[in-house]
């Protein structure tokens, strides 16, 4: 793209642009690091053991773990044994959040993880592949006094992943298994202030439900939600970036359309990249504060997916063009030279030329095959990764763990606390926006060349008459230098025309 701004800019101006972009990048990091709190909060809830006779199960009775209307509690299951309370009569109750707090739509989502404290007993061990059956009820309310409204009710199964790290002997009776954290629940929008979970682990010997799951001592639930402060900072950033990218996009397309030729593929891709970036940027999440839109999480994932696929397509096309140009440069230039003097010269006319052209095509074919194989390999890796995720997570490689440890919390710097995680998120987000911005700005056609284009066009009119025909443009999928009429395909096209 000889006419692009990047190629016509003086080094000085280029450096200035680079410095400005860097400043914005640093600013994006600082917004996250200094203003925003950490992205998410995890709250550890220990389920309170309430006693509710099984006959009440059909009734919509809700068990509150604390507060004015709390249930009959037992402290431990030894107490239950003494009082002759059975497993079916025990309800685990968890109130989200803790007292004196309330949930808010700013939290965006609640993710609840489940963890069992299971004591080892020689006589009552966890069987292989044991599955826990949970009878779960979820309710909400918006003030502390009104009735609970049922939100969901389900009978869930979770496979236990526990191992005992000590020798399995009587001496170690009572020590705990190490159990993996199990995914439990995900709420996509936090529209209510208070949530209540009631969990039962019903036992049915005939149906073999909840047998052989060991001696459960406690149930921990870990509630994860996005911090309100982070959401606010994030939304503010989105609201600022949307118009910025939108403006540069409009400017870019105006530049393209001002040229007296239809846009080429690369230009279209860059424009599409801008669109997908804007799609991510548009702060539709503002609505989630007012409306109970549960699909917001999914929508966010989809938008991110579209952007990344667009970005990868852009890179492939971009690299393809430039690799092609480099590899073929020498030969091209020679032919171009010949072509300049003799418009009837065609590569297919000479034997050597034909072989050369064919070899290029074959090489391209091999590259395409390799690329496809590589892609398959990557997809295979992804599948393996997903299936092996559960086992691989605790045994992360050292390097990765180090990365996370850096990634974990906050740094203290003088009197300030730097939220590394948040800085990372806002920084990355800002980086992609700046990248798209820079690409659109630098690869827009330079206005210096509007005139040139026409004059140079006139100069070589005789040579690339066909360039301006639509059919030919379609063939030139790999054209980067719009006004450099020497691409292989173009020659082929010419040949065909002739």
């Amino acid at each position: 793209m000889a006419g692009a701004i990047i190629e016509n800019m003086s080094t000085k101006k280029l450096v200035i642009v680079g410095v400005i972009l860097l400043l914005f990048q640093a600013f994006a990091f600082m917004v996250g690091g200094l203003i925003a709190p950490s992205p998410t909060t995890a709250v550890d809830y220990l389920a309170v053991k309430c006693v509710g006779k099984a006959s009440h199960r059909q009734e919509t009775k809700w068990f509150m773990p604390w507060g004015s209307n709390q249930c009959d509690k037992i402290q431990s299951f030894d107490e239950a044994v003494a009082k002759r309370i059975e497993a079916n009569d025990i309800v685990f109750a968890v109130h989200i959040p803790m007292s004196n707090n309330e949930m808010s739509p700013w939290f965006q989502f609640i993710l609840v993880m489940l963890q069992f404290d299971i004591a080892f007993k020689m006589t009552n061990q966890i069987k292989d592949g044991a599955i826990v059956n949970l009878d779960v009820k979820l309710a909400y309310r918006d003030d502390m006094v009104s009735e609970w409204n049922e939100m969901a009710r389900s009978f869930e199964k979770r496979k236990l992943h526990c191992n005992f790290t000590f020798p399995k002997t009587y001496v170690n009776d009572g020590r705990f298994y190490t159990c993996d954290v199990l995914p439990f629940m995900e709420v996509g929008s936090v529209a209510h202030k208070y949530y209540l979970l009631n969990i039962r682990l019903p036992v049915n010997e005939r149906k073999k439900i909840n047998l052989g799951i060991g001696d459960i001592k406690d149930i921990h639930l870990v509630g994860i939600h996005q911090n309100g402060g982070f959401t606010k900072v994030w939304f503010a950033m989105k609201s600022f970036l949307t118009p910025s990218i939108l403006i540069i996009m409009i400017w870019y397309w105006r530049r393209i359309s001002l040229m007296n030729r239809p846009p080429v593929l690369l230009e279209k891709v860059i424009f599409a990249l801008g669109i997908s970036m804007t799609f991510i940027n548009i702060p539709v999440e503002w609505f989630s504060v007012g409306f109970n839109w549960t699909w917001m999480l999914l929508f966010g994932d989809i938008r991110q997916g579209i952007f990344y696929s667009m970005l990868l397509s852009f890179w492939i096309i971009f690299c393809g063009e430039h690799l092609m140009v480099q590899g073929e440069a020498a030969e091209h230039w020679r032919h171009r030279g010949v072509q300049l003097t003799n418009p009837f010269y065609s590569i297919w006319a000479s034997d050597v030329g034909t072989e050369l052209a064919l070899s290029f095509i074959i090489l391209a074919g091999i590259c395409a095959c390799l690329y496809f194989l590589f892609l398959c390999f990557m997809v295979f890796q992804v599948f393996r990764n997903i299936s092996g995720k559960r086992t691989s997570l605790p045994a992360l490689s050292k390097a990765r763990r180090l990365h996370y440890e850096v990634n974990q919390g906050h740094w203290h710097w003088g009197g300030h606390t730097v939220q590394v995680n948040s800085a990372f998120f806002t920084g990355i987000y800002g980086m992609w926006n700046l990248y798209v911005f820079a690409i659109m700005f630098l690869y827009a056609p330079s206005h210096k060349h509007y005139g040139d284009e026409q004059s140079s066009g006139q100069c070589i009119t005789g040579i690339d008459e066909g360039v301006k025909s639509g059919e030919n443009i379609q063939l030139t999928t790999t054209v980067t230098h719009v006004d450099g009429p020497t691409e292989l395909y173009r020659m082929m096209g010419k040949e065909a025309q002739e």
Partner: protein
Amino acid sequence: MFIHWEVFYYVFILMTHMRSCCSWSVNNFLMTGPKAYLIYSSSVAAGAQSGIEECKYQFAWDRWNCPERALQLTTHSSLRSANREAAFVHAISSAGVMYTLTRNCSLGDFDNCGCDDSRNGQRGGYGWLWGGCSDNVGFSEAISKQFVDALETGQDARAAMNLHNNEAGRKAVKGTMQRTCKCHGVSGSCTTQTCWLQLPEFREVGNYLKEKYHRALKVDLLRGAGNSAANRGAITETFSSISRKELVHLEDSPDYCLENRTLGLPGTEGRECLKKGKNLSKWEKRSCKRLCGECGLVVEERKAEMVSSCNCKFHWCCAVKCEQCRKTVTKYFCVKKGSQRGRNESATIRRKSLRLKKH
């Protein structure tokens, strides 16, 4: 018996706090007025008790086995010991208090667990909305510090040692906590990851502190004279140079083999020990030698009949349908040389008490 001691003790502390509340409470955690203390007092008492139970477990096969007399954390006399065992007792009690408070926070027993001292400097709900609360651990650490450290009123070396060991106990809880993480980025990728700290089982803390007990550092400060300001400076300097994770003691331990009424030590005579058994650790296997042989006592074998429940059908909670089984077990006890004659009589008594213990 001991449990009551502890509870009364903490209630006493509570009362002193209540009396001095108005001038003393300048902190964020305990709101205002004496009611605030009552919320935590039962947890504090329960925590101290669980610490002592753990102490008994950890020292079951040692010459010193956490006897009740030794557990009076502070009698305001200068007679209280400052040895390795006292260091452990202080550490495990303060750890127990912190542990129980953290646990009860997660249960929702208290109104404000870590939410009052928001790290953003904003109080109440706004801090929670903006950046969440700080974790329960910080909160319970502060509360347990308030309660347990308030017992040390003196400014001498003993007080400094006790404070140091209390701190070591709290550090032990923090140090044994496990970090668990969850990835929740796009389709479970690790772009977003949230980590939290989980309490280990209390046994873990006990084991950790037992190791620290074996490696406790001795500080020679008792020879210094009086309570002068210079001396006090030396004490603070000495203790601040020692890592806060380590246990510290000033005196050597007495001979626990012998009974010592002035120190309230029962001696090892009559103690049970372990001899044979597949799954015993080295420390346990050598317990008869340690408790009896090296103390000039002999090991006596006694057979006892035990009734226990067996062939139970278990559910995840609350065992059901058990049978009663009788079996004979062999136990070993330390007795004085030549006193085996009165054996039969004492054996029956033992047997009874054993049966009582099991049920």
